[in-house]
């Protein structure tokens, strides 16, 4: 086995070259190249973490804005509903008032018309009385040739009409 049989004769040589090559590996690669690679990795990881944080913050902001928008929308809707309800109440009131006024106007018109009718009826009745009295005078004078005074005739007609 050369590893053991040559151990003593080649140990110094192996040690020498290992010290040089492993020393170079340690100094040039482990001490100077590796930290740069690690820092690249760290920088990348940091950037990814930062980007993720920024994205998370932006997402939160977007959520907040959406909430605000929703709240405003809800408030606006409430306001609109209130305005609509008020307008409805007012419109109802106004229309009721109009109907009442119209009712009043119609009622006065009706009373006036009724009064007119009553007056006219009375006038017509008195006319009928006078005409009837006249007619009665004429009939009596024609039939009996007795003279009936107008006053008597009117009295008689009134008495007769009262029984109708």
């Amino acid at each position, binding site marked *: 086995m050369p*590893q053991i049989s040559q151990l003593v004769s080649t140990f110094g040589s192996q040690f020498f070259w290992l010290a040089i090559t492993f020393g170079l590996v340690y100094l040039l690669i482990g001490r100077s190249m590796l930290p740069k690679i690690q820092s690249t990795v760290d920088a990348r990881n940091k950037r990814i973490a930062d980007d993720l944080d920024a994205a998370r913050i932006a997402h939160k902001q977007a959520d907040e804005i959406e909430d605000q928008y929703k709240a405003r929308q809800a408030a606006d809707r409430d306001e609109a509903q209130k305005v609509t309800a008020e307008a409805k109440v007012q419109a109802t009131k106004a229309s009721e008032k109009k109907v009442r006024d119209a009712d009043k106007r119609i009622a006065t018109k009706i009373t006036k018309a009724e009064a007119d009718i009553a007056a006219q009826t009375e006038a017509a009745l008195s006319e009928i009385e006078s005409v009837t009295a006249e007619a009665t005078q004429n009939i009596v004078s024609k039939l009996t040739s007795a003279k009936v005074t107008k006053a008597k005739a009117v009295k008689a007609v009134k008495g007769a009409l009262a029984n109708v």
Partner: protein
Amino acid sequence: MAGEEGKIDPMHQFEIQPIFDGGFEIAGQTINFTNSALWMILTFITLWIFMLGGMKREIIPGRWQVMVESMSNFVTNMLTSNVGEAGRKYVPYVFSLFMFILFANILGMLPIGVIGLHPFTVTSHIAITGILAVLSFSIVLIVGFWKHGLHFFSLFVPHGTPLPMVPFIAVIEFISFMIRPFSLGLRLFVAMTAGHVLLKVLGGFVINSTNAGAGYGALVGIPSFMLMVGISALELLVAVIQAYVFALLTSLYINDAENLH
């Protein structure tokens, strides 16, 4: 490859040979530029090229950058999940360890033997794995004593140990603690060596049986070759897993030093 005529030595692949003549001496040891050194340097260069692909540092990464970053994230996560946030300062070391072992393991598996080159697995040598294990263990010791002082010895007495049991538990914990560098180093060395030996033995079956005749070749060589394909896939898995185990155990030991238990 052939040691003697018709005989294939599966251990030959682990031999360390100087590529250039003439080394120099440091503290009584001859330093040669060997095949092992060559593959260590290749490991470094390959790893460096791999890492270079991750240096574009774009916010939206390409495929290569994703590969490099996922490796970096993998080791970082391993340390943060095992040690906690304090584990981040050990990432450079554990990452270097993991990637160096991983690339050395995989480069040693490359089938460049078919174009006449000899791949060499750096991590199949106990010297290399042992040094790395001792390095990890020393870091654990230094960090442990630096942070906790002598209180670090409380590591050997787990919480809730009944008082009469303390001496026995402490001895057992101490032994298991001291065994860590050996188990750490041996595990990787044995896993790499065993796999490569098995592949080489099966390769020897294919060659020797085919040399003995077409009938033997069909009877022994083809099944051996099928087995080699499967074992090569398994070895790739082992290469990754052993690198992972080495890094994972190192981070667990560092956790002991950082947080006691």
